[in-house]
């Protein structure tokens, strides 16, 4: 018996372009959580991340005809989400440098650092506290280091996909990931159990 070939995202998009609304629903169901997650980790705010995720899918809905399967659907989707996140950050603070290809770009929690949660010798952190500590440490990374880290570590995308989303080379992605890990290693060292 011949097994039916699973339908990939590009095929769902093609069907949606032909007017099949159910195909769009499939894509929304598959990706709404990862996109919310990406936006939340990038912006650090749940309400805003849901707004951006909604806007991302609305743009897919409106401009579906403009999609060409030259890149993976997920790459296109993350690119839209990333651009909307950057617009939101710029709108919030026009002076904030959040250029993803600029090493001088800034973090999200500049006035609130994880030093506020400095460890005491016998302190055991709850899971929730550790989550908050990591959120602040990652949020304090410059936007140019934060974006590739989130896409690689949490969204589990390949270096190639990240390079396409951020509009840089694979080598640049790897270098930024190395730098991000180095910074986080220092930042999080006091919270690591021996």
């Amino acid at each position: 018996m011949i097994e039916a070939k699973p339908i990939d995202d590009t095929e769902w998009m093609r069907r949606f372009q032909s007017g099949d609304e159910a195909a769009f629903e499939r894509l929304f169901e598959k990706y709404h959580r990862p996109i919310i997650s990406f936006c939340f980790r990038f912006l650090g705010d749940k309400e805003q991340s849901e707004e951006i995720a909604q806007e991302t899918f609305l743009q897919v809905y409106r401009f579906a005809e403009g999609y060409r399967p030259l890149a993976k659907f997920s790459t296109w989707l993350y690119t839209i989400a990333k651009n909307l996140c950057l617009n939101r950050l710029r709108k919030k603070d026009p002076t904030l440098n959040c250029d993803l290809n600029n090493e001088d770009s800034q973090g999200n929690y500049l006035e609130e650092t994880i030093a506020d949660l400095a460890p005491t010798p016998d302190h055991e952190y709850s899971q929730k506290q550790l989550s908050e500590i990591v959120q602040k440490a990652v949020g304090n990374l410059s936007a140019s280091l934060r974006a590739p880290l989130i896409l690689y570590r949490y969204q589990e995308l390949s270096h190639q996909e990240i390079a396409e989303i951020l509009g840089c080379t694979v080598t640049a992605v790897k270098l930024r990931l190395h730098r991000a890990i180095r910074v986080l290693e220092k930042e999080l060292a006091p919270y690591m159990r021996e």
Partner: protein
Amino acid sequence: MNCHEVNEIAYFDQDLPEDSRLKIGDHLAACEKCALKVARLKKTEALLGAWKSVEPSPDFKKKFWSKVKENQQTLSWKERFSWSGLDLFAPASVFAAILIVVTSFLIRAPFQPQEQYQAVLSEKQAKSAEMVALVDLLENQEMLMDADLLLEMDLLLDIHSSNLEKS
């Protein structure tokens, strides 16, 4: 392989060739310093996993689909006023129509003096015809040779007109 050749971060790289991974592994087994670095990285990596993502709000999907519905209504409204469903053409065609009207008005405006000129010219031509008729009437061919007198013909015409009115 020595310590300088070991890039402990690259050890976690998904693209690292298997033979390189094995070589680094061999070095780590023999070098306490590098093994410590890798252990620290593993801890950092584990700690990053502590950051939990958020669950979508219970009404997230509902909100989204109502926005889609709104969007569909906006689209169908646009389609009603578009040509061949190409809604982008609707505002463009309205704009083009306005542009044509405004442009034709602006182009037409400078011709108005021209039309006035034509009217004046026709009037003058009629007067000239009358003048020629007057000259014929006067039956004085010598007068036609005198340019100065020609210039005064307007006056003669006026006199003739007034004479006609009187008669």
